[in-house]
């Protein structure tokens, strides 16, 4: 299959833009120059055939365009503090001389001094190459709002001196966690139905795994995303959510599951016991048949100890119940501080029902129904409550 222009652009945009930002120290100038180079490619390549190295061609062309622009506008040169404007090179840069600075770029985009929404938008724009309009559509905000968000973020990066570099080792764990959170947030936005965002998150995750091959949590996140994404097609039937045990396994993507398991093995081999590696290990157990519920519960216990999250404890309770220990599950759920969380009451209702405590189960369903928002979940709860019969 011939490689399409769109594919080349998708693959190269982030790298070309990152090296331009590293060279110019200016997001806007870099973005404009990259856009010009990609537009020129779209015009010339179909006519003259693609160059031998598309990446080198794009990087050289964009760099020369930027230098031309600086020359035309010396005041801009002063602003960007390029004391000496380098000569535009006629020769294409060798592919090996183009530094891969995507890692520097993603750490800049996901800097905690930017608000989370802006981190996400900027990452998708610069590394993913999505247009402002595409990002706006994906996050259901007006294009103008998204454009303002991006402008403000870029302005802050320049004015506040947010560095373009990979953080030193004493900052790396915290800052990498911020990067992974952004990628996972993009994935989850996509997992709710907008598949293009999930694909984008997988692409970003893959790039991170390539750039930081020794970080277990990066592989853990990639594994988690692959294992969840593999079940995408089976999660909905006629617009209704399908529970794991009712999913049509023929719709699962076996290749994705295998790739997810490989990433998980890599994370574990690197000693990964962080939140993403643990969630991926749980996701891997979920695609096994029969499902080893006691091991799932044990992993949730480890995850809860790590995160201190009562929501994770609730999942552990559900796993304990599936493993047969309904009494222990109920005792655990009863001790959680999640009174405003409808899943707590829905879970308690199911556990009480299994224990034959019908009146208490009915009350718990009522509590859950009072808190639930999604229409499909409401119908499900009402159905379950009705099955208990009249009081």
């Amino acid at each position, binding site marked *: 299959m011939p490689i399409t222009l769109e594919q080349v652009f998708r693959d190269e945009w982030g790298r070309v833009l990152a090296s331009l*930002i590293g060279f110019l*120290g*200016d*997001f806007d100038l870099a973005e404009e120059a990259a856009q010009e180079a990609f537009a020129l490619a779209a015009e010339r390549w179909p006519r003259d055939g693609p160059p031998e190295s598309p990446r080198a061609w794009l990087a050289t062309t964009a760099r020369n365009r930027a230098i031309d622009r600086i020359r035309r506008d010396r005041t801009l040169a002063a602003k960007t*503090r390029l004391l000496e404007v380098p000569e535009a090179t006629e020769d294409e840069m060798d592919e090996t001389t183009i530094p891969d600075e995507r890692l520097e770029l993603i750490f*800049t985009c996901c*800097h905690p*001094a930017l608000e989370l929404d802006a981190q996400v938008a900027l990452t998708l724009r610069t590394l993913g190459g999505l247009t402002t309009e595409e990002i706006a559509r994906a996050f259901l905000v007006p294009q103008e709002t998204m454009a303002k968000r991006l402008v403000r973020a870029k302005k802050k*990066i*320049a*004015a*506040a*001196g*947010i*560095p*373009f570099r990979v*953080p030193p080792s004493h*900052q790396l764990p915290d800052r990498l966690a911020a990067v992974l959170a952004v990628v996972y947030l993009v994935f989850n936005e996509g997992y709710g139905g907008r598949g293009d965002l999930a694909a984008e998150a997988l692409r970003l995750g893959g790039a991170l795994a390539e750039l930081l091959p020794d970080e277990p949590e990066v592989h853990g996140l990639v594994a988690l995303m692959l294992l969840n994404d593999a079940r995408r097609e089976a999660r909905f039937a006629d617009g209704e959510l399908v529970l794991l045990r009712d999913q049509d396994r023929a719709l699962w993507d076996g290749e994705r599951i295998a790739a997810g398991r490989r990433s998980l093995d890599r994370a574990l081999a690197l000693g990964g016991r962080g939140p993403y590696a643990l969630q991926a290990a749980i996701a891997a157990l979920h695609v096994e048949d029969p499902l080893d519920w006691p091991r799932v519960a044990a992993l949730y216990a480890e995850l809860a100890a790590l995160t201190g999250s009562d929501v994770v404890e609730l999942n552990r309770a559900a796993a304990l119940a599936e493993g047969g220990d309904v009494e222990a599950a109920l005792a655990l759920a009863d001790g959680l501080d999640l009174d405003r969380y409808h899943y707590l009451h829905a879970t308690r209702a199911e556990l009480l029902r299994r224990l034959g405590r019908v009146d208490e189960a009915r009350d718990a369903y009522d509590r859950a129904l009072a808190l639930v928002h999604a229409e499909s979940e409401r119908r499900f709860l009402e159905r379950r409550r009705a099955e208990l019969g009249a009081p």
Partner: protein
Amino acid sequence: MKEDGMQYLMLIHQGDTPTPFDQEAWGRLSPEEQQQIYADYQALNQTPGVTPGLGMQPPELATTVRVQDGKTLTTDGPFVSVKEALGGYFVFEADDLDAAIELASRVPAARLGGAVEVRPVVEY
């Protein structure tokens, strides 16, 4: 993301931080804790790149002035609430925001119930 250094105004907001201006709250700290706070501020002032600010009296002693329709209105207290008011400042010349964040995290007020606002200075 500039090649050369940046200048930051480091604005210290005391919030709930005990300070010697409130002897009762200050007295609840152990002598060791009090000494540590003085030592930390001294270390900050001696950090390369730091230009110490002027010492400020507490926000309770501030006077706020507005002009409406040409008339000067004077009120007792700071513009924002006392807890949100500026308690002190210094200037830090650094490579980038990460360096400023690291230094800000060493300001005692940041760990004692207050916060440090890092504000880049306009460069012409």
